[in-house]
């Protein structure tokens, strides 16, 4: 979230799209009902299904699954063609006036630079034109035919209301109603917030759906504002934290990135990340990259990391490609992976195409599962009749299962969607011999280290030198680990303004990332979390909920990264002169000598407005990007591409380029995609409010509230197929079938799309062959093995099925 949960109450218009906040995040959704009740906000839900969010919406807007870019592209076209922009904001705070390099083009569904064989783009033309001073060129009148605003107009001129209606199936008048409502927030004192979740991310064009919303918000001047922003409602309690800590193939903590195998030169590695400013006078915060990186390496490798060995740069593994979870299961399926660890993760249920996953896991030599629960993944080799029909005797995988504690049995912090790190406390011992995750990891690591010490082996240096100065080595305390990622001074740190004084003494905890150094005198395990545990103690455990501004920024509650900031880009809530756009949303302001206010300014605190520093300080040009340059795989502007399994078999905008041309598709999976003639219905899979993923089927009350697997279909389709509510039905995709009870509802209506009638089939995901709820089929039996081109998030939200009475 750029903003945070409570801030939703400040919105005037709330759009839930690509998510179902009322069902998946009920207690955060309360701030929607607060905005309605106390801010007279209008609440809109855009979704293929009339969800429980829609039940309390002022306006429900149907659209076909997978067509959100068409819808939002239509909104952009509406705003541009009717001149409903926050003009001053667009001019000063976005790259609308920037001139794009000659050679950039978009024709018939493809941007310039496409390589069909590699399914990738050469992105060299997706760049700004450089002026003689080396900086990007601007046309402040925004009339230049190659300035971003003009290119934007041209790109989205195709997204007329008629085109939107034809692709999305949204009735034209309803679409225009939404556009009008959105446009009301282009004034400085009204804001719109978008609340989305995996209803956007889980598409082959998911990242671009989110970008389109971000572009709408930039055009309306709603980014950085209280009650505005683009707000990802994350699905798990600490998936924000785990992502922040970089537990992904290509990341290091704090969104630092691992080197590729062509980046074996340390200076080049740093240089490629510490971006040069693209405009004069910009803060360009990533210029500090090396400070973050060196401090991380000091944290991990201690005295072994020296200037002379480039802070152990060679020890970091170098990437040849990204090894996301789809890639991992592809390799496993090919027999190229021998061992796999699943820590609190149940991929047999959570990754698409169960048949492929089972085959893949069966080819492993060993599988290690660390979990509090009896998961399907740990038991993939067990025969559970029709729900998991495998022969254990033929599965040669060794499985070791280790019981971990749950939240109630350990101290620690979780990072919520609003980036708050909140500390929690152990209330009881775990059942049996279960241990906290950190202790399990320590147990494995210490054994491994001992073996390398005694036996030697392949490149043991990083294992032997890993810092491990925990008081009880086999049980690192959460408090010790939190202090480690916060960082500390490894030597006395001199005050940059008065070198005679020390800001911190050797061994003291850092106050924040501003104190980090690139000379090895600081350590910090995750720079964005720095400030979480300072000399003042555990800032994550703070419990002062006072809210002096009434805007909901409780700065004394827990700790928000970065630097306890609650609303990102909040400098943009003021006009260029430093005065809030809306006096009722006074987050920060320039008081004549410094930036101050009710939030921690997302800005250089002493940079006067006259200096012209842009509010988007992480960007080298200081402004928000309507044109994404080379940051996205499939183009600098989002374009509508159909899901890989499309019910209409074409792309009405460009029939030659139907799906995302830059999405990675493994060869063997291509043959597993279905066609609409065999699988005519658009399916989408989702959570329901009574359950949480694959956990609560182990929970008695949750199992009582929604005991048995079901699918949802509309009355028209039910009638066509002779299905009545309560009948058992079989739902089939190219990859397999499930059986479930049919819920027949008025809440799913057929849509008219490109001259055809499209029916949706809704598939809740929560049941499986384990748990105390009624056993069922894992819903991912049906879903396709393809992901978003940027993040590889699987396309769980749009695929094709057929349905019949069982």
């Amino acid at each position: 979230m750029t903003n945070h949960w409570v801030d939703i109450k400040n919105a005037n218009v709330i759009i839930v799209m690509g998510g179902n906040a009322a069902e998946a995040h009920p207690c955060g959704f309360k701030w929607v009902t607060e905005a309605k009740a106390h801010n007279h906000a209008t609440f809109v839900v855009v979704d293929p299904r009339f969800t429980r969010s829609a039940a309390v919406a002022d306006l429900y807007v149907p659209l076909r699954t997978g067509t959100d870019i068409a819808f939002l592209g239509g909104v952009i076209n509406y705003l541009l063609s009717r001149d409903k922009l926050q003009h001053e904001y667009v001019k000063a705070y976005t790259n609308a006036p920037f001139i794009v390099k000659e050679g950039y083009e978009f024709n018939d569904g493809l941007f310039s630079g496409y390589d069909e064989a590699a399914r990738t783009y050469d992105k060299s033309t997706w760049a700004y034109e450089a002026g003689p001073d080396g900086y990007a060129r601007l046309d402040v009148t925004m009339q230049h035919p190659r300035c971003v605003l003009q290119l934007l107009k041209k790109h989205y001129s195709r997204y007329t209301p008629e085109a939107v209606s034809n692709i999305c199936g949204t009735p034209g008048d309803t679409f225009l109603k939404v556009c009008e409502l959105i446009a009301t927030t282009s004034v400085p004192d009204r804001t719109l917030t978008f609340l989305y979740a995996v209803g956007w991310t889980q598409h082959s064009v998911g990242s671009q759906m989110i970008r389109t919303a971000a572009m709408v918000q930039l055009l309306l001047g709603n980014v950085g504002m209280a009650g505005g922003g683009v707000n990802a409602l994350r699905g798990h309690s600490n998936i924000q934290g785990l992502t922040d800590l970089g537990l992904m193939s290509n990341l290091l903590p704090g969104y630092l990135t691992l080197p590729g195998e062509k980046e074996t030169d340390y200076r080049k590695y740093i240089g490629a990340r510490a971006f040069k400013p693209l405009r004069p006078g910009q803060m360009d915060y990533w210029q500090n990259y090396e400070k973050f990186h060196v401090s991380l390496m000091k944290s991990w490798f201690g005295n072994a990391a020296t200037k002379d060995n480039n802070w152990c740069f060679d020890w970091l593994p170098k990437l040849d490609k990204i090894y996301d979870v789809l890639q991992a299961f592809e390799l496993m399926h090919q027999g190229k992976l021998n061992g796999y660890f699943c820590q609190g993760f149940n991929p047999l249920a959570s990754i698409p195409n169960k048949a492929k996953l089972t085959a893949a896991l069966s080819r492993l030599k060993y599988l290690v599962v660390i979990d509090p629960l009896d998961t399907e993944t740990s038991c993939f080799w067990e025969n559970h009749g029709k729900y998991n029909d495998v022969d254990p005797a033929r599965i040669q995988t060794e499985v070791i299962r280790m019981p971990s504690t749950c939240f109630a049995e350990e101290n620690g912090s979780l990072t919520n969607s609003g980036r708050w790190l909140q500390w929690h406390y152990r209330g009881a011992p775990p059942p049996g011999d279960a241990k906290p995750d950190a202790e399990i990891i320590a147990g494995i690591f210490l054994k491994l280290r001992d073996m390398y010490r005694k036996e030697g082996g392949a490149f043991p240096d990083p294992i032997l030198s890993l810092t491990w100065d925990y008081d009880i080595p086999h049980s690192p305390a959460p408090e010790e680990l939190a202090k480690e990622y916060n960082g500390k001074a490894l030597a006395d740190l001199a005050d940059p303004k008065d070198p005679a004084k020390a800001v911190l003494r050797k061994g003291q905890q850092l106050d924040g990332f501003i104190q980090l150094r690139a000379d090895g005198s600081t350590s910090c395990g995750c720079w964005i979390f720095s400030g979480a545990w300072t000399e003042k103690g555990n800032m994550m455990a703070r419990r002062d909920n006072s809210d002096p501004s009434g805007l909901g920024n409780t700065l004394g509650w827990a700790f928000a990264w970065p630097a306890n900031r609650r609303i990102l880009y909040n400098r943009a809530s003021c006009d260029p002169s430093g005065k809030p756009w809306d006096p009722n949303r006074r987050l920060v302001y320039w008081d004549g000598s410094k930036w101050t206010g009710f939030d921690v300014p997302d800005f250089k605190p002493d940079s006067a407005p006259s200096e012209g520093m842009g509010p988007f300080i992480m960007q080298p040009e200081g402004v928000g990007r309507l044109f994404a340059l080379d940051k996205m795989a499939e183009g600098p502007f989002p374009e509508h591409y159909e899901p890989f399994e499309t019910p209409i078999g074409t792309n009405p905008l460009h029939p030659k380029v139907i799906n995302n041309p830059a999405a990675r598709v493994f060869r063997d999976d291509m043959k597993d995609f279905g066609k609409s003639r065999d699988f005519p219905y658009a399916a989408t899979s989702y959570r329901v409010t009574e359950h949480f993923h694959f956990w609560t089927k182990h929970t008695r009350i949750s199992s009582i509230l929604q005991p048995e697997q079901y699918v949802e279909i509309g009355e028209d389709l039910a009638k066509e197929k002779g299905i009545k509510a309560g009948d058992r039905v079989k739902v089939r995709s190219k990859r397999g079938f499930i059986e479930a009870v049919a819920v027949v509802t008025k809440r799913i209506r057929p849509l008219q799309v490109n001259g055809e009638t499209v029916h949706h089939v809704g598939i809740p995901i929560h049941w499986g062959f384990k748990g105390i709820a009624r056993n069922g089929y894992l819903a991912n039996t049906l879903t396709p093995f393809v992901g978003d081109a940027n993040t590889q998030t699987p396309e769980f939200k749009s695929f094709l099925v057929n349905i019949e009475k069982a």
Partner: protein
Amino acid sequence: MALQSLDITRRSATTTPSPSQRKTQEVVKLIDVSKCIGCKACQAACMEWNDTRDKIGTNHGVLDNPMDLTANSWTVMRYSEVETGRGLEWLIRKDGCMHCADPGCLKACPAPGAIVQYSNGIVDFQEENCIGCGYCITGCPFNIPRLSGKDGKVYKCTLCSDRVAVGLEPACAKTCPTGAIVFGTKDDMIHHAEGRVADLKSRGFAEAGIYDPLGVGGTHVMYVLQHADKPGIYHGLPKDPSVSAMVTLWKGAVKPIASFALAAGVFGAFFHYVTKGPNEVSEEIEKEFKDEK
């Protein structure tokens, strides 16, 4: 709890007056259907607080589950997909005891002190006094109480009298994510409801209103309805509920005749009656017994 136990307005089948000198604040649980997202948090919190667990059932082709109130489920969400002038509306009503000011259950109950009404308005069942006759079930105009197959006693929502007694709100009201359930004094809740009705009217719900039916003397569970003129569309919420004919008759004309009959020595028949209950109720009871077993 001693204080609370003395603040009694009336007790079932008791002729001696209840200690009623004190008057506590009248409380109300207000359920704003227009804010309800049907998440069933109230159902979960109710079971969790009251230490009841229903059986794990099956799906019946709808989202409702459990399908009906039981001796373990004292509240259930009832989902209605209704076409109105505004298009499709999904009306989701939390069903459970209404805590009537004039409680039909209490009036019908033959077991002394099995049903009490506190001066704060809560109608509470004292299961240790319950004889399982099921009269309260017939007496209830909202079809709420349910007989347990396990102990042969009747259960329903207590409005968390144990929490209210120590100054807390009921578990369902506390947990409700959207504030669709709120709890407070009757005056405050009426004020709150009026604000909600005004908001709904501003959003085009011309018939929005408060449900606090007079036929049962008003209730201590009230609804805000978008369509207060048509309570029936909310899964059959009765338009004009009233205490049933039998119970009213008993309280009025029949009582002297019945007393006379007692004098004439029909005690045996009566005893049979209260232990076995009337036919209609027995069938329901038997069904519940079966379901629970």
